[in-house]
């Protein structure tokens, strides 16, 4: 039996095969969605740009040439112009992709994991554990997210690390809710009961049987949240609470460029476009993913 047939069979032999089959079908839907593919292309381009930054960039992103400050796009071999300290904006955006990916990557790994742990534990154990954990989640949900992140960064001090921490601290509650809802649907399933009868402990059941079932909805959420994370990080940078100079963080670049907006529009506009394109990429992909996993809302 070939792989294709194994994936598309109507009679899967295992839960694993069924899941894989579902995923494969989702992937085929996704490939047929041009917008989602555009999003994927943007993200791949971003990753490549970050990985190959030294080769893609034309200049050192840090080195200053005060006499070449504020050159317009195209002048003096600077495709997107130079900033207030004569640094090449194109190269700074290229290197800035690393910071963006770094922030997004770490938040995407930490917040959902924490949310998963809280949500699955609450859903699986129920009772007072559920009450306490969900109350905690509610408290965090009652905060305006950006204001809470602002307050955290102000408390921890400005910097990329603290910005990540603040965003992660404010991003986990939705994952906890999704995970809890998923857990509730599988908690009493036969195979869980079977595992329990075989003497598996709670930790093992949660890790081995419950969490995998929550993964797909969490992954969709993560993709959809990426854009929000990028925008929040850029917002923190814009308010001066993100990456510290001379790091080329995009939000910080907009903030530095805004006082030149009238005569040197490119300084603030270029990094803004970068943020926009990348978060659009994540949104397009996330949207496509959701359709693929939840066909009811898809245009057909």
């Amino acid at each position: 039996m070939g792989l294709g047939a194994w994936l598309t069979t109507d009679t899967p032999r295992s839960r694993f095969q069924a899941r894989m089959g579902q995923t494969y079908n989702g992937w085929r839907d996704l490939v047929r969605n041009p917008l989602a593919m555009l999003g994927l292309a943007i993200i791949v381009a971003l990753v490549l740009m970050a990985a190959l930054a030294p080769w893609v960039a034309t200049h050192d992103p840090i080195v200053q040439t005060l006499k070449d400050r504020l050159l317009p796009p195209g002048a003096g071999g600077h495709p997107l112009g130079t900033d207030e300290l004569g640094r090449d904006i194109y190269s700074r955006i290229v290197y800035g992709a690393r910071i963006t990916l770094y922030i997004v990557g770490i938040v995407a790994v930490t917040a959902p994991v924490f949310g998963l742990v809280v949500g699955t534990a609450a859903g699986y154990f129920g009772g007072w554990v559920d009450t306490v954990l969900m109350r905690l989640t509610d408290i965090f949900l009652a905060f305006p997210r950006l204001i809470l992140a602002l307050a955290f960064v102000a408390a921890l001090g400005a910097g990329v690390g603290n910005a990540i921490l603040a965003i992660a601290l404010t991003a986990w509650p939705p994952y906890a809710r999704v995970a809890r809802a998923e857990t509730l649907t599988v908690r009493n399933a036969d195979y869980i009961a079977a595992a329990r009868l075989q003497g598996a402990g709670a930790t093992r059941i949660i890790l081995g049987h419950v969490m995998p079932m929550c993964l797909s909805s969490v992954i969709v959420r993560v993709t959809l949240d990426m854009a929000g994370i990028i925008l929040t990080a850029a917002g923190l940078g814009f308010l001066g609470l993100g990456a510290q100079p001379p790091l080329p963080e995009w939000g910080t670049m907009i903030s530095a460029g805004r006082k030149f907006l009238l005569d040197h529009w490119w300084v603030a506009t270029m990094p803004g476009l970068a943020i926009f394109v990348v978060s659009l990429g994540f949104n397009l992909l996330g949207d496509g993913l959701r359709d693929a996993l939840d066909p009811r809302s898809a245009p057909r």
Partner: protein
Amino acid sequence: MYARFLTATALALLGTASLAAAATPPDTLVVADKIDDIVSLDPAESFEFSGNDALNNVYDTLIALDPKNDFALVPGLAESWAVSEDGKTYTFKMREGVVSHAGNPMDATDAAWSLQRAVKLDKTPSFILTQFGFTPDNVDGMIKATDARTLQITTDKAYAPSFFYNILTAVVASIVDQEEATAHEADGDFGYEWLKTHSAGSGAFTLRAWKPNDSIILEAPDHPYWRGDVAMKRVFVRHVPELATQRLLLERGDVDVARRLTPNDIEAVRNNPDLKVQDEQRGRIFYVAMNEKVEELAKPKVIEAIKYLIDYEGIAGTIKKYQATPHQTFLPVGFLGAIDDRPYSLDVEKAKGLLKEAGYPDGFEVEFLVRNDPDRLEIAQSIQNTLGQGGIKANIKSGTGKEILGDFRARTHQLILESWGPDYPDPQTNADTFARNPDNSDAANATGLLAWRTAYPAETTTPMVNAAVLEKDTGKRARMYEEMQRIHQKEAPFAELFQEVETTGVQKGVDGFTVGGAVASAFYWPTTKAAE
């Protein structure tokens, strides 16, 4: 249904288009500024630029600075004064016929009460007065009204009279209407809670409203100002934090004066036939301070090397173009005894040599604190760049003004980019803080002194500063400050970068407005506007 609603909305929006160009009222001065520094508008407490700008036009002082004559000392509420033989007792003759905004006569009892009040309230700027030996306990005896028109002030030592007269022009020495303020007294606070947000003065304007981070409205009282007619009936100072928009407001005629223009804006305003640019040398000095509690930064060679690793000309010529004059001493030009020696310039090779002699051939790493403000971040990045060329790796850490100041006052910083504005128009203001440090121990906790904050012992200059305030011969006094600056410039852990120039964008028809030069705060009351 929706279509009709949308059409209506679109029409309403189009209708607004015609409104955009508006001129300010002819009897109102509209100023765009940043006023988020204001904490209090009580003259005994106000110590911030924007608050002092307003109070300078709301209250009068005994002796004033003349905005029309290079800020020379002129009589204020006191019409004449004299000092006794022993140099310790000053007698002021009060001007007759001045009434406060509330209509009360302003006489010597108001003056005595106001100065006593500032000493007794003991808010931050009170040190300006207490350096003459006043304390809350003795001040009633040392400052008193002998009759309604005579005020007598006794100091603990025979100070240079010029020093004392200069002090009396400061905002903290403003004369408050005693009757009005006492009417709003609560718990014996001398009307402090009320005066934070209200006024009881005799100046050209009353404080009509202060909306924090939004606006200040000053309004002329019903009766004429004792100095003569004031053309403006109202002054509206508007908080515009986004710098690029100040120029937009000016170009569109929404404001008469824009005080925070960027170098690019200045060029555009210069080229605009409806606008003009006013340059005034201010007293504020930007500097990099090194903390001598840090092992590397305590070495004289390292301090010298850092002074050679700053692109003074580059910063003043690009980032702060039009807004800075290179300046490398602690006294701003315009002050008694100020010198303009500039021995330092960017010299990477020389600095590398010095670092090698100091035992750091490969440089070292250091934390560099800077306020979270676009201009300062640019300056800091330029310095970070040139320090790097010499092998010193500076890691910028930006924070809000208060955050940075907290580290600085606790002596926990390493390198810091800061600025210092004089508190009153006398050289003592900067000499006292930059060059005097009577006790360098942590226990002294002399947080108000920059020399203590940087752990600079100032052994040679401390006695010189103490002596200079007692020198009656003004020429001799000036020479003492000159000498202090030369010593300070050579050894102190301060690299002064430049003295600020304030470039103000003004509508063509607006005359007489000044931000106060090197020594004073803004003057709104001499302003006139040409008829359209």
